[in-house]
């Protein structure tokens, strides 16, 4: 698709920069029975962000926004680790954590769809209170767990491939199926594109909105499990901090409008990968922490300028004009 061309170019450019600094950047080896390499790292560490961003895409497509995903990430991880540390089975722990996440998401959806509260405020409530809830669960401490089965989710490998990547692929496939194969995607886009028209067309917008927020929270819940499993511990204070911002950024870079309507799952995945590659680039080329943000600002600016048709047109036109002028001169 043409829309995805520029994000792809940017991703490629970022990767190329890395190769300049780390010659073996593209090398992928099998070490101790699993894939090892920088590209794998990008996918592995980007996995939670991709998940959260996928959920966020659908929320944004309905014209909403979900600020609470970061807190849900923390809650899910905290609850799972607490359960495991209290000797509940991993399966129970995971089910409980995801169940709670979905419930919290549905709560968001209820506030938006039924109570008619603006999404940003409705989810701000859970963003604030949810962080507190996560800390309540962990008692403000870091719960360390040691369970190989739990470790698999975010830090383990299946058939040499990091399990997290497989999980993301699975969620992506399911989401794509629900939205593009089934009619969910079109109905979401209709609700986001013109809510009143959709109502008059007989779409049950409320149900869809609740579902979408619940889905976003489920994605965040899985991401929370991944993050805590990756470091074998739950950090109610910091897990998922500011991830909502990165997720929204990923969605926007991917070409979905914050005003709702059309959305692109592939674009979101690309957006998330760009953000994660950017982070990795910062580490590997050794940008000092004080200038990290300047570097990020630069990249984000370039990304959004390149994606803007108006900008390209202006630049190209000028270039075409100067080229023509030069020709005349010559």
């Amino acid at each position, binding site marked *: 698709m043409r829309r995805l061309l520029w994000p792809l170019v940017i991703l490629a450019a970022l990767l190329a920069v890395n190769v300049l*600094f*780390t010659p*073996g*950047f593209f090398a992928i080896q099998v*070490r*101790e029975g699993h894939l*090892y*390499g*920088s590209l794998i*790292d990008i996918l592995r*560490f980007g996995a939670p962000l991709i998940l959260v961003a996928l959920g966020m895409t659908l929320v944004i497509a309905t014209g909403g926004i979900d600020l609470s995903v970061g807190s849900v990430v923390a809650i899910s991880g905290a609850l799972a680790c607490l359960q495991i540390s209290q000797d509940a089975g991993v399966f129970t722990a995971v089910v409980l954590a995801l169940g709670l996440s979905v419930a919290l998401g549905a709560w968001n959806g209820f506030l938006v769809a039924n109570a008619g509260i603006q999404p940003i405020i409705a989810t701000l409530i859970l963003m604030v209170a949810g962080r507190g809830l996560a*800390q309540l669960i962990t*008692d*403000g*401490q*870091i719960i*360390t767990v040691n369970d190989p089965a739990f470790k698999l989710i975010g*830090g383990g490998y299946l058939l040499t491939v990091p399990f997290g990547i497989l999980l993301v692929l699975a969620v992506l496939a399911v989401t794509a199926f629900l939205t593009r194969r089934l009619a969910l995607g079109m109905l979401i886009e209709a609700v986001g594109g013109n809510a009143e028209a959709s109502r008059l067309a007989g779409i049950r917008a409320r149900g869809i909105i609740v579902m979408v927020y619940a889905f976003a929270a489920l994605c965040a819940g899985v991401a929370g499990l991944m*993050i805590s499993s*990756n*470091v*074998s*511990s739950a*950090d109610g*204070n*910091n*897990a998922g901090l500011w991830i909502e911002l990165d997720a929204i950024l990923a969605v926007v870079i991917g070409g979905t409008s914050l005003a709702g309507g059309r959305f692109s799952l592939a674009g979101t995945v690309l957006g998330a990968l760009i953000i994660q590659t950017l*982070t*990795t680039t*910062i*580490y*590997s*080329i*050794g940008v*000092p*922490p*004080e200038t*990290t943000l300047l570097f990020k600002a630069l990249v984000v600016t370039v990304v959004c300028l390149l994606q803007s048709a108006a900008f390209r047109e202006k630049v190209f036109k000028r270039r075409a004009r100067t080229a023509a002028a030069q020709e005349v001169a010559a």
Partner: protein
Amino acid sequence: SGGSGGASGSDDGSITMGFSQVGAESGWRTANTKSVQEAAKESGITLKFSDAQQKQENQIKAIRSYIQQKVDVIAFSPVVESGWDTVLKEARDAKIPVILTDRAVDSKDTALYKTFLGSDFVEEGRKAGQWLVQSFNNSTDPVNIVELQGTTGSAPANDRKAGFAEVIGADPKFKVIASQTGDFTRAKGKEVMEAFLKSNPDIDVLYAHNDDMGLGAIEAIEGAGKVPGKDIKIITVDAVKDGMQALADGKINYIVECSPLLGPQLMDLAKKVVKGETVPARVVTEETTFTQEQAKTALPNRKY
């Protein structure tokens, strides 16, 4: 005085303390909060607690509200060093004594607070550096160090970096080849360390500004097929329980303690201050350092 504030407690002998905490950003901080709360209960001091969520303005608001509520003594852990003069003057005008904990403030007018109880982050950085210099003193090969910094701009990150750099800067064989923030968290520590391992094949030492980042980095090192503590020597700060465990297991080589358990000392000081007794202007918390052997003996009676 009652829990709802109001009249000063000095008349009936009981003391009300307003305590403004930085936030709950880490396990260390939570342990610190707990220690203060428990100590207050034990010593019969009524504690008014507020969490500033890492924001100085919230702390100022809280202190101002304590003044409003006419507490007997105010204690707080400043988010940053600067910018306290105005509100401290208000406290002085209201004749409420102030105790600083954990971090100092940079007011020229030291009469604005009674005393400062806490650790010295620069000194912690120095201790880490000194151990490094000592353990490598009989080799002349260059030592490649990577550093995991705390949250950019935060006082412990700034100071622990500075103290460390000051000590190792004396010998050119020590080279910090990469330094990046890990936001004091395990997840970030792991992520950054993985990137370090890829772009720097030859790392000898890791210096992490807290245990959590060090613990995350250990996972990364193991994932890369190296042995933490052997292939890469690890120094961290804090001495939380998980860190001490790793130290005892030989995965970390050295930990500089930074104790959060200031509560009892704080309550003692508070009582003295309220009675009008003189107290030293600076009370340093009792802190030590741990090697792997020391950790094994100390581990069973660690509180947090």
